[in-house]
């Protein structure tokens, strides 16, 4: 029997604020344990939380970015449970009145089709600290640097039907939040973590099956594999006539399987109630409008514009809009080079190829968009053949001549000869000194001629030391040989 997969995702997104959501401590990643934990983060007696306004702003920006209802009055609640890395014995979160209500966004799948995924809500909360089990012999350590880091928990509707859709959803979300500038989206540092709610049901059924929740999966690849292994596990049980137990599971990447967490964790009664230390967050229309005015152009709109304005195809537009930085790099290159298609090709093939090979980020690229644009300009005005252009690109990458394209051309003597008078002289010489080949060419049919002409082009390029404009050579040769 084949089963329909029903998935809802809860993403914990770390917001890119300098300081924590309820204290002034830094949120920087990777500092020595407990060096970024203030009296508030340590839950010392008498300490009180003060809301970081930037976290609110980022949450609103996200809500506006997905066209969601903004909770003009949202409330922070205490979620009560004991754990050593939770200093207060409760987490400050939002329960009944979240800051972002219903919204949605559209994801594009590999086959080119698109799908809209609903967002149930998004709410602000603080992160917990970390328990360290392998740093101190016979004891556990606690690092509270992360405690109080602002998180936006984004809850999707159970609209996702496959691992592929789940990954597409996460990638689209990742692109969106980095466009909005509300998160660095660095998954290796835990900036985006995902809980997967998954159930199976018979095709055509309108009721949901019993779901399991897979906690804290932190890469696209693991999400894909966790879903695959959980689908397999659940369908094996159902095929055998068994029932799914509603529970929390963990994905073990090494064994590529999910396994049950202790049921105690599931049975928690969190005793949510409004935190009396914090006032409800009241947002005025003016405040929301002011944030709306700062919304950047979002990926979907940018893609559409790139297609309309630059005449790019679907694939190129998609690829260039993958990140705001890349899109901006493209626009600056195209502006300087005055050829959007060439710019797109050079960026997607040569630039990204080099970046991948060297492991560098776009920000670290030694070639700036103005330089690449300059290079493209020299291709357009026939100064450079594409082969020469690759040499100049290489020289730019190495930082030659302080990145001055014209100086590199000059220094390397790469100027393409496009003077038809000079080329005609060369061609006449080659034609005159190869009478046999000329005769052979003239006797051949159209198909063979195409092959034979390569000989003459090769001779001319050799005589010009590679600088003849190949297009022009072809044109003039055709004339001279016919």
């Amino acid at each position, binding site marked *: 029997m084949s089963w329909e997969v029903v998935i809802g995702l809860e993403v914990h997104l770390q917001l890119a604020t300098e300081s924590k959501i309820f204290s002034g401590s830094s949120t920087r990643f990777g500092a020595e344990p407990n060096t970024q934990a203030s*009296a508030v983060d340590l839950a*010392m007696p*008498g300490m*009180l939380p003060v809301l970081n306004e930037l976290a609110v702003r980022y949450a609103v920006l996200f809500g506006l970015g997905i066209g969601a209802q903004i909770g003009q009055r949202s409330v922070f609640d205490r979620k009560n449970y004991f754990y050593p890395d939770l*200093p207060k*014995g409760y987490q400050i979160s939002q329960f009944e009145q979240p800051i972002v209500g219903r919204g949605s966004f559209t994801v594009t799948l590999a086959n080119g089709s698109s799908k809209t995924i609903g967002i149930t809500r998004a709410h602000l909360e603080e992160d917990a600290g970390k328990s360290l089990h392998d740093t101190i012999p016979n004891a556990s350590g606690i690092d509270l640097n992360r405690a109080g880091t602002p998180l936006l928990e984004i809850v999707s509707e159970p609209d996702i039907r496959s691992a592929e859709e789940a990954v597409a959803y996460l990638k689209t979300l990742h692109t969106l939040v980095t466009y909005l500038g509300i998160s660095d989206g660095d998954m290796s540092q835990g900036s985006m973590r995902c809980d997967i709610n998954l159930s199976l049901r018979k095709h055509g059924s309108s009721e949901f099956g019993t779901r399991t929740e897979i906690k804290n999966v932190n890469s696209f690849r693991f999400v894909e594999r966790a879903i695959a292994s959980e689908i397999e596990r659940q369908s094996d049980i159902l095929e055998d006539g068994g029932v799914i137990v509603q529970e929390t599971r963990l994905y073990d990447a090494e064994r590529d399987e999910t396994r049950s967490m202790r049921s105690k964790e599931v049975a928690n009664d969190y*005793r949510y*109630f409004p935190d*009396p230390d914090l006032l409800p967050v009241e947002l005025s229309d003016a405040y929301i409008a002011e944030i709306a005015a700062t919304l950047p152009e979002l990926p979907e709109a940018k893609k559409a514009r790139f297609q309309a304005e630059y005449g790019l195809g679907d694939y190129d537009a998609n690829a260039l809009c993958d990140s705001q930085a890349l899109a901006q790099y493209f626009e600056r290159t195209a502006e300087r080079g005055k050829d959007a298609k060439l710019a797109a090709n050079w960026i997607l093939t040569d630039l990204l190829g080099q970046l991948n090979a060297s492991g560098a980020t776009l920000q670290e690229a030694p070639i700036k968009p103005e330089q690449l644009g300059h290079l493209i300009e020299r291709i357009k005005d026939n100064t450079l053949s594409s082969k020469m252009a690759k040499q100049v690109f290489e020289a730019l990458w190495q930082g030659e001549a302080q990145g001055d394209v014209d100086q590199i051309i000059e220094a390397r003597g790469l100027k393409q000869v496009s003077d038809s008078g000079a080329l005609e002289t060369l061609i006449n010489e080659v034609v005159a000194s190869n009478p046999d080949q000329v005769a052979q060419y003239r006797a051949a049919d159209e198909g063979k001629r195409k092959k034979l002409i390569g000989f003459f082009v090769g001779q001319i390029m050799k005589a010009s030391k590679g600088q003849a404009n190949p297009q022009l050579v072809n044109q003039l040769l055709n004339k001279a040989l016919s």
Partner: protein
Amino acid sequence: MEMQSIKQLSKALSDKQLSAVELTKHYLSSIEAHNDQLKAFISVDQDRAIRQAIQADNMLSNGTAQTLTGIPIAHKDIFCTKDLATTCGSRMLANFAPPYDATVVRKLDAVGAITLGKTNLDEFAMGSSNENSYFGAAKNPWDTNCVPGGSSGGSAAAVAAGLCVAATGTDTGGSIRQPAAFCGITGIKPTYGRVSRLGMIAYASSLDQGGAMARSAEDCAFLLETMAGFDAADSTSSDRATESYSEQINSDIKGLRIGLPRQYFSADLDPKVRNILHDALRELERLGAELVDIDLKQADLAIPVYYIIAPAEASTNLSRYDGVRYGYRCESPADLQDLYIRSRSEAFGPEVQKRILVGTYALSSGYYDAYYGQAQKARRLIAEDFQQAFKGVDLIAGPTTPGPAFALGSKTSDPLAMYLEDIYTLAVNLAGLPGLSMPAGFYDHRPIGLQLIGNHFQEGQLLATAHQYQTLTDWHSRKAPVFAGGHL
């Protein structure tokens, strides 16, 4: 040193009739002489007090002194004091010295007030008799067989016995006003949000409020105007401008309409208390106030509502005391669960444990709507009840307590009788209003307080009314049998 007011002491200090160091030493020796008997102080830091006094004398010499410069005071041991033990009356924090000062402490330090030490209280401010203190109950200077009230009983006893000029207190359901009444002093709990809660150890966050305790309303005014004000580090503190209560204190009360809730003066009220209050109200009338009968129809809701909301908030406020980062930790815990259970069971006293359990239950899934949800609705009714009343009157007057200080141990086995102690004070916290208790007479040999309740931010009016009353009466300057008199 006989019953001098802050104003008189301040003048003596600035006229160089005495130095802050002399004054401080006098109080330190008074504490030494009487604290064993009264247990008003949990800790006294002589070195710190003398250091501060030297600094105060410098301020007095270089022209930077203010009214409170050089005035020896005490802090309820719920306010965090940097590097000075802050126990909250609990075994849990018996060895805890915070690395920071409460905002209230910082403000009083800044004007040169001198901290003599930290006063006794019911554990985590939960109690009405001081008998829930891990360090043993403070005693009432008027009758050492009686309780001083609670939870700010140590502060009240210290002021009444002349062991300090004034003291800070906190009031969640009556914890300033009730001990002030029992000990024959004046105490004011301001509007919720008027005084920063930063560094004030939380019991029930939506009700807790710091305030002032002293012999007279005028002394309270000096203390409170220094404590009050917006604090960016406390999201619930009010950004309303502060007022000079000491300047407003001479405003007359002619034409002031004072409401007398029928529910507070019902047939249940002890006739002796009623007579004392009637006499006091007649004095207020003589000062020009008009007395009006009013209704507070929701008065009966106060106790049940308070005993859901306060424990609910307390149950999670006290979750941080888990034996992990600071405070008491049990010996050799077997595992994490054992660490939590034994640390908390061994270090929290029975009343604290009871309130944690009650509060946890009230917030539990399935019970939340019936208890906490209902209590919040009823709390709004209580607040509306007061707002309705304030449409017709400027102030409300009534008893602070049902009777005078009771004997130590007499109510410890009857929690309901103990909870009824706060029947007149709880509603004020639930409504976030300012309330004041002032001495109004004696029940046999024990003081009785009159409570004045104002509308939000009417502390100035409350203090002025009490001050006018205190210009006509001398209840507030009577000396308790245990009193550290004597001259320098």
